[in-house]
């Protein structure tokens, strides 16, 4: 790859060292980004396998392949791994680190060593979580929400798992601190706030949520540990505590955390759609603003997880109203993406297909979210498979597909080689089909009354569960094809050089793969991020 840049060597072989230590102790944002990418994608695959096992178990009523306790542990671990080890660090840690500093015209993030520490904390937390599965009383069986009073009483290894999540939280906070500081301080000359690419804007909003919400999770998890180890009784009704207070504290973090997961995904889509439509993004300022609006409004809606937990009617109405407010900035984004497509010169390459399916799947997930956000309807579908279908549409159909889009869009830039287009499109089609068969069926099941997290179900739910499980296999087949094609391409594929997509953001102006310090000299920005006049494909 080095023969492509006659001047500065690429970040792959700048130091002449390529061993493991040159990666795991590197402070280069691109290397740290790739570290995050490989670790998060590995945990994603772990989560996928667990999810497939859960679907096989639910294929038919009664015991299929595992016992009830194993089932409880598996859905807990599936949730913990997917949420804390994959989706939350997935985009900021991997693509944020790789792309954001280049997009603002910086050589690195503000605190490169803190950045490395952040990855290490993530790994340490992840190892602790993994250890918790195989030690003590066995894998936690509480669900990823660790609800008290069960989590303070169960004999499984909740304390250690919670401690691992606590450590991972620090990692998330440090990434947030780093990104806000970088975006404020290290923008190149001419990179005004209205020229920041929308992916970076979304990371900026996300970073604020990471900073302001994650500490609440930290203290909540400390309280769970204190409950178990010291017997503080703060959430124990027999000792004057209130379990509902746990739910409040937990969701004060965990609802904003949903926006930590979805906002950067929206940023990816906002960057990809104009490039593959050859049109400037419609409503740049509103999309940037809506990221901040979602971050702000999204921090005030946590109570909608608790409509059936015993809150006052006033609280229910207020939280329901605030939840509907979040729909406004979300819809602003969707309408602006559609308007960008209008009369564009659309090319349906793999990144674009994933980005377009994001719009559809996120919209389905978002609209089903309104059914859950309205108190009257929520009471009927609360804790059913409707909820499971809803958040998989948003998290997997939304964030997951956006990550796949980013993988096809940005990874060739960092490897200098590309995947084959046709298998990528076949993989996309398989995944899109399998996804909808799997999760739309779940929503129907939920409407019919099948509860979530139950090991067994009534025979009448049998046929639809079988359909959902078959969908999960189609989805998995597409996923395998996508990953094989992508990685084979990145390591052995055709060279990828210059700016084949025709992007106008700064990362497309640097060499492929980028040199260690990204730019030769100080970049000066003279045009907006979606100004395609003068961009040669």
């Amino acid at each position: 790859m080095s023969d492509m840049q006659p001047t500065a060597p690429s970040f792959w072989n700048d130091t002449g060292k390529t061993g493991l230590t040159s990666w795991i102790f590197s402070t280069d944002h691109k290397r740290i980004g790739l570290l995050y990418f490989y670790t998060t994608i590995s945990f994603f695959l772990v989560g996928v396998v667990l999810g497939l096992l859960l679907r096989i178990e639910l294929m038919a009523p009664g015991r299929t392949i595992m016992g009830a306790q194993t089932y409880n542990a598996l859905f807990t671990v599936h949730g913990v791994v997917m949420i804390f080890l994959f989706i939350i660090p997935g985009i900021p840690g991997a693509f944020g680190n790789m792309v954001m500093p280049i997009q603002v015209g910086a050589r690195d993030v503000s605190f490169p060593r803190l950045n490395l520490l952040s990855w290490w904390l993530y790994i340490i937390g992840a190892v602790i979580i993994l250890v918790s599965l195989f030690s003590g009383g066995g894998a936690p069986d509480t669900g990823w929400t660790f609800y008290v009073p069960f989590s303070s009483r169960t004999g499984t290894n909740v304390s250690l798992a919670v401690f691992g999540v606590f450590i991972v939280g620090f990692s998330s906070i440090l990434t947030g601190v780093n990104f806000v500081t970088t975006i404020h301080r290290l923008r190149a000359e001419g990179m005004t706030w209205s020229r920041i690419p929308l992916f970076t804007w979304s990371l900026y909003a996300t970073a604020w949520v990471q900073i302001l919400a994650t500490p609440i999770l930290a203290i909540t998890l400390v309280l769970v540990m204190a409950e178990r180890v010291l017997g503080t009784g703060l959430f124990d009704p027999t000792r004057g505590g209130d379990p509902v207070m746990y739910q409040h504290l937990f969701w004060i973090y965990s609802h904003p955390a949903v926006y930590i997961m979805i906002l950067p995904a929206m940023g990816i889509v906002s960057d990809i759609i104009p490039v593959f439509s050859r049109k400037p993004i419609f409503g740049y300022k509103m999309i940037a603003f809506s990221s901040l609006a979602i971050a702000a409004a999204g921090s005030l809606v946590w109570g909608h997880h608790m409509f059936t937990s015993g809150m006052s009617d006033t609280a229910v109405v207020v939280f329901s109203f605030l939840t509907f407010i979040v729909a406004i900035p979300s819809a602003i984004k969707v309408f602006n993406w559609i308007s960008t497509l209008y009369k564009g010169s659309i090319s349906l390459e793999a990144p674009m297909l994933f980005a377009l399916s994001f719009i559809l799947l996120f919209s389905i997930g978002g609209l089903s979210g309104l059914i859950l956000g309205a108190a009257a309807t929520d009471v009927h579908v609360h804790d059913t498979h409707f909820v499971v279908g809803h958040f998989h549409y948003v998290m997997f159909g939304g964030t997951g597909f956006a990550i796949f889009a980013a993988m096809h869009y940005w990874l060739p830039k960092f490897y200098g080689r590309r995947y084959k287009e046709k298998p990528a499109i076949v993989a996309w089609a398989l995944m899109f089909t399998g996804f909808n068969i799997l999760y739309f069926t779940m929503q129907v099941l939920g409407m019919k009354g099948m509860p979530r997290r139950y090991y067994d179900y009534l025979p009448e739910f049998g046929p639809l569960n079988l359909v959902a499980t078959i969908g999960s296999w189609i989805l998995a087949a597409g996923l395998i094809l996508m990953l094989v094609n992508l990685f084979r391409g990145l390591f052995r594929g055709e060279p990828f050089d210059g700016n084949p997509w025709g992007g106008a953001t700064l990362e497309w102006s640097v060499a492929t793969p980028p040199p260690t310090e990204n730019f030769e000299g100080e970049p000066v920005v003279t045009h907006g991020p979606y100004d395609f006049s003068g961009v040669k494909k």
Partner: protein
Amino acid sequence: MSGHEHRDDYGAKLGMWLFLFTELLLFGGLFLLYAVYLKRYPHEFASGGKQLNWVLGSINTVILLTSSLAAAMAVTSIQRGEARRTVALLGGTILCAGGFMVIKYVEWSAKFGHGIYPGSEHLKAGPPGESVFFSLYFLSTGIHGLHVVIGAILLGWIALKVRGGELNAGNNILLENGALYWHLVDLIWIFIFPLYYLIL
């Protein structure tokens, strides 16, 4: 970023302030619980608060305020290039931190002696609100105490760097950030002290 010496003191301070927000929010969770449970158990909270030693609490408040003063003076003195005075002032801060922890130890062990600690039989037998009050008290002061220890270690490490000449009049953002952290530790105590010792 090898090869480039890039320093951004303003950025470093911005990062520190962002981190301090996270600390405030961490304690915010405990203050939130305090508010809710105070409303639910006003009498038990009042009787619990009366059992705390407000004299020792006041002495600790004075100690922490003094330590913050010393930390602030250390920042000014390093800016003037007075390394030895800076180290001495930081030593004063750390000494105060030690004094604070000793008094905390005295207070806690007196409570333990009366059978008052999280999960104790005495609290389990008493009214639920009392157990909630003391659990919150031990958690808040305990986590705060942990921050005092971390802050003291941090300032000790910084003092070594000042003595070694690594930090000086031209390069002292680390000390400034360390002092900011110390002021935060102080500030949180300024809220904990009246909430538990005075207003009940």
